[in-house]
């Protein structure tokens, strides 16, 4: 039994065919799963970028402010968050802090943007819904993701990394305008 010492020579006892077959099947499946990840990096269209830089929160804030000044098209929401409409292909900055996402981004469907994410204080979670894209946002790291919205409409940015008592009020917005 499994709760008593096995008899001597257990190591040399034959293994049943069914057990060997299962080990083989499971091994093949394990290797297929392993191959899928690098393969998706080559062929797939949803991958984590490996581009990130150390940045001071003030430096990041300055970049956000610069973008807001340049491309602001309006204000929106209870606290009059600026709405910016940066040109397609440009560097877009989104800032997370206790407890807001700043600013509101207006993007064009089917166009690519270099999205920069960083936090001014604690960690936050960038969760675009209902597109269901979830990325971690750190203070001191400028994370660059090339993103192409394929659906249009208003998307919520939920903070899904717990960040204190106001965590559940931290909701931002991305608007994707349909391609003309």
């Amino acid at each position, binding site marked *: 039994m*499994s*709760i008593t*010492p096995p008899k001597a020579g257990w190591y040399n*006892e034959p293994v049943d065919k069914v057990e060997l077959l299962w080990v083989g099947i499971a091994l093949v499946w394990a290797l297929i*799963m392993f191959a899928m*990840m690098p393969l998706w990096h080559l062929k797939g269209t949803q991958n984590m970028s490996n581009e*990130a830089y150390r940045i001071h929160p003030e430096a990041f804030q300055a970049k956000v402010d610069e973008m807001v000044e340049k491309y602001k098209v309006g204000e929106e929401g209870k606290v009059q968050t600026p709405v910016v409409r940066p040109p397609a292909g440009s560097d877009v900055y989104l800032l997370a802090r206790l407890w807001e996402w700043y600013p509101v981004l207006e993007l064009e469907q089917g166009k690519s943007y270099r999205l920069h994410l960083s936090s001014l204080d604690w960690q936050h979670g960038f969760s675009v819904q209902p597109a269901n894209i979830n*990325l971690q946002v750190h*203070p*001191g790291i400028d994370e660059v993701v090339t993103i192409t919205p394929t659906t249009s409409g208003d998307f919520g940015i939920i903070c899904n990394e717990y960040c204190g008592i106001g965590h559940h009020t931290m909701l931002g917005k991305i608007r994707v305008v349909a391609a003309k």
Partner: protein
Amino acid sequence: MVAKPVFRTCGLTGLKIHDEAEKLIKANAVVAIVVLAVGGLFGLLVALTRWPSVHLLPADLFYLALTAHGIDILIVWCIFFEVALMYFASAILLGSRLAAPKMGWVAFALMVLGAVITNWKVLEGNSSVMMTSYVPMQADPLFYVGLILFAVGALIACFIFLGTLVVAKAEKTYEGSIPLVTFGALVACIIAVYTIASGAIILIPTFLWSIGLIGHIDPLMYKVVWWGMGHSSQQINVAAHIAVWYAIAAILFGAKPLSEKVSRMAYLTYVFFLQIASAHHLLVEPGLSSSYKIFNTSYGMYLAVLGSMIHGLTVPGCIEAAQRKKGFNKGLFEWLRKAPWGNPVFSGMFLSLIMFGFLGGISGVTMGVEQINIMIHNTIYVPGHFHGTVAVGTTLAFMAITYFLVPALWQREIMFPGLAKLQPYLFGLGMGVFSLFMMGAGTLGVSRRHWDMAFSDAPHAFSHAPAAYLMMGVVGISAVVAVVGGALFVLIIVCSVFFGNPIKATAPAPAPSPVASYGSEEHASVPGTFTLALLFLTMFVLYYFVNWKYLASTWLMS
């Protein structure tokens, strides 16, 4: 002077039981169950708050209860029970004295003290930092001190376990190799040692930072090391509860492993390939390379997953072989139909085995894919997954073996046998549904650790799909069912331990032969188990690729 160790022979199993070991096992198990009750109560409060139409607690208390629930269940309950299991698997199964029982009490005291301090600080309300306590969010310094004391205690317990293996070997209390269950506990112990070391490496500097002696803890570095504890501690659970499955198969059915060699090799894959698997929690983190993430999250090309898939065949397989030998040979599944479904030791174990594989296992591997994690990270899918592993897997398995430990160690009958029969089903199925629907809601984007899915006080508006609300309602209801099951467990066990009818020590059962007569089950045919395994694989493959397809439909990212 060292007192001569005192032994008794168990009237139920014939095992030779060291008095001091028995006391320590009882103490650790009792504290574990008390913590399960406390942590479970916090869990109920959390679930009743996330049930949208109940929304019980205010936000601050919700985050407090969630922090306490996470620490008490994921860390304190599991590890206390595992310490009891390690002492059982070494001293009792090997018929040996426990090495350094006095140190065992020191370990116990440190763990209790640590757990009390951390809980006290959380309940005070200034340490609602979640179990993960990600910096730069800061808790009360004593919050970290409590965790460190607890870890030191657990580490001492690990070394007592290892010491007992040495003592048993030296004093020749057994011959040949250690039993498979002890081997499983050894694997759990090895994982525990590097888990606890990771915890110490990160929590000690974090404590120094919280009292102002260190200026800065890098948040990314914190996570890489912290998850060396956080994730690996759940792998202690897996190694331990698989040992419990094998133990129960042996206790109830006299089952021999289909092959000692294969089962032990499967355990060895854990030692070789689990590594310090932090990446599961860092897949969508900036600043870490994809190659690190891919190797680490796959446990070394999924070779440790291979180990679990092997146990998935060999555990039910050894039960099938034993049952067929007793004549339950009709068709594919007579062995399973005629199993003792009314005995909570069996029903708890088998529900744990099935649901751990189908719910926790499949979802865990799928969400641990680097790219698929983009759709899942920090959604409520994540707790859905780990309730499928820790609650219906580990906790249910530990509950099942407790129904055996009470008569064996406390020598008391289980009280309320009718309720005991029902208990694993209430807890197991309640938790199963709970886990499944959390995963469903997570797929719809509902966030974990979040007080208000309606975002009433947010600067902008966003509404989740109505289906997400419906699923969170089911989550609430099933949590209540599971908590009733959990409360029944605590009630039955506490009552049995204190008021159960003493089991009369009649003629002691014959002691197991010191010269072991057991090896692998030879030429066993297990067609039923193989069919179940193929069903599992089919579900696994389908679910895995459905998620890739779902990923391909979202925005493009690179």
